[in-house]
């Protein structure tokens, strides 16, 4: 990290700020284009939560059926929204990082004068952008076909919370990306992503899960993101939102710490 930050500091000193900003912008833009054209990523991260929502939120449910203080169609925007955010963030960061560092591309970039932080920022920006796309689609579907009545202000708040909630999972993705191989990345992410989201009540509302799972869910980060989103539509578990924020922030820091260890281990292998 020392070497990277020296390089970064130098990068700022030799480059006008506008030029640095341009690099961050282009890095993010091309990361986005790369993934958008990569159907495996763009279609699956968007279509899975949307399909689930259409199936369980719109098709299989009578309009206006109540759950947890709101309608199913509204409830599921928040929970499948969290599910979609988690997928977009994990796959957006971990699979790209694992492949690029495992197959030599990251090394080409590191040999160039690219500010290292621009690389990670682009990956996080990608995760957040796709998160925003997924949540917006769910909102649009819910309002158009699911009889969801949500004031603009609440819809905006829901979107903002979920997109901000992308950050802990981007951090988690960076941590995973440093510890899995290029070929096992997708399998590893699914192995973490799917059970974690199911046990956090993102597929089936939390109150329908067995009591034991409901207890365990308190230790799972996706649960806390879903609860923050649900509280906007008045369907949370009536816990203090501070608890959820603290859990997510703590989890983010933990993941960044792990990612940092991976980063240093990687540099150590090649630098040391």
């Amino acid at each position, binding site marked *: 990290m020392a070497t990277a930050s020296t390089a970064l500091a130098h990068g700022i000193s*030799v480059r006008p700020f506008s030029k640095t900003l341009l690099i961050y912008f282009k890095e993010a833009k091309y990361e986005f*284009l790369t993934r958008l054209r990569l159907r495996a990523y763009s279609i699956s991260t968007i279509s899975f939560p949307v399909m689930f929502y259409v199936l369980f939120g719109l098709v299989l449910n009578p309009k206006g059926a109540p759950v947890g203080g709101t309608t199913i169609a509204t409830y599921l925007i928040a929970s499948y929204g969290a599910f979609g955010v988690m997928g977009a963030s994990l796959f957006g960061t971990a699979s790209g990082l694992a492949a690029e560092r495992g*197959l030599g591309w990251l090394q080409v970039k590191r040999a160039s*004068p690219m500010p290292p932080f621009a690389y990670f920022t682009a990956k996080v920006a990608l995760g957040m952008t796709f998160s925003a796309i997924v949540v917006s689609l769910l909102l649009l579907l819910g309002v158009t076909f699911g009889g969801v009545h949500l004031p603009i202000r609440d819809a905006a708040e829901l979107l903002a919370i979920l997109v901000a909630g992308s950050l802990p999972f981007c951090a988690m993705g960076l941590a995973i990306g440093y510890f899995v191989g290029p070929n096992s990345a997708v399998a590893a992410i699914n192995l973490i992503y799917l059970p974690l989201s199911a046990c956090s009540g993102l597929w089936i509302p939390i109150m329908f899960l067995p009591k034991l799972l409901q207890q365990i869910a308190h230790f799972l980060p996706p649960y806390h993101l879903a609860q923050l989103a649900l509280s906007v539509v008045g369907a949370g578990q009536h816990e203090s939102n501070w608890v959820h924020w603290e859990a997510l922030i703590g989890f983010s820091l933990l993941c960044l710490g792990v990612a940092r260890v991976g980063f240093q281990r990687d540099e150590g292998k*090649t*630098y040391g």
Partner: protein
Amino acid sequence: MMISLAGPIKVWLERGNRMIATLQETHERRKKESGDGGAVIASLHQASKNFGDVQALRQVDFAVRAGELVALLGPNGAGKTTAVKLFLGLAKPASGTVRVFGGNPIDAEVRTRIGAMLQVAKVPETLKVREHIDLFSSYYPKPLPLAETLAMASLQEIKDREFGELSGGQRQRVLFALALCGDPDILFLDEPTVGLDVESRRLLWEEIRKLIARGKTVLLTTHYLEEADALADRVVVINRGEIIAEGTPAEIKASTTGRRIRCVSSLSIEIVRALPGVLEVRRDRDALEIRTAQAEPIIRELLMRDPGLSGLDVTSAGLEEAFLALTGSSNNAVA
């Protein structure tokens, strides 16, 4: 089809060779005019590097001078890639120092003057050629205009193609374009033509020569002697992490051409050395090793003077053989 094409291909190859010869002459002349090399701009001093138990480089001293094209020649696993990684700041020497433009290659300021072409297993495939170049150009303070980069790497016609659609030769040219787009002063090209067919290889050679014509400094690694011969001002032969020979391509070739006679004989070195046509004689354990342009007259003479001569072995020191003779067989080393 093959028969009808053979003629034109031959003509084309000959024309290519003539062109290369002319370019080489120009280059030699330019070098003479500019004196014996410029200032040292990149150097390894007593640099060692190991990966676990494997010693990739052993106390290597190596310098690249401004304006020259140096080929680091060696078999796979000789330590070529490790040397390049040290120069690029992608690896740190276990001992010794690395200097590029008087600084440390991990400094961004130094890196803005360096271009690098590395061996990559996979490049993001859904970005277009011009997009890849646009992104890398943005890292440098004074990049070349896109059109110029495209022209220098012969990519104009495929600039809108996605990387994944390109052939092997085209992919290498894109990586080459990424190395030169920032208009760096020195370029490190790690095995730029590995795995390419003859035509793609020659095309890339032309492009590398154009860089030198623009006053750039180039260090390239290769395990093709022919490539080092065709491009380099100076060849440094490396094997098992050690530099074992260094000189102009002509010197390297001269030191190894002709034939090598090996035999066990009671004749003294002085007598053999006095024979007409003998270039060099040395004693290797109980045998004599004689280097000559033509083996037969000398063998005749030797047998006449020493009927008890035994263990006669004649090897031709062609270019590839010479290279193998220089490097020996390689093992236990990493790239």
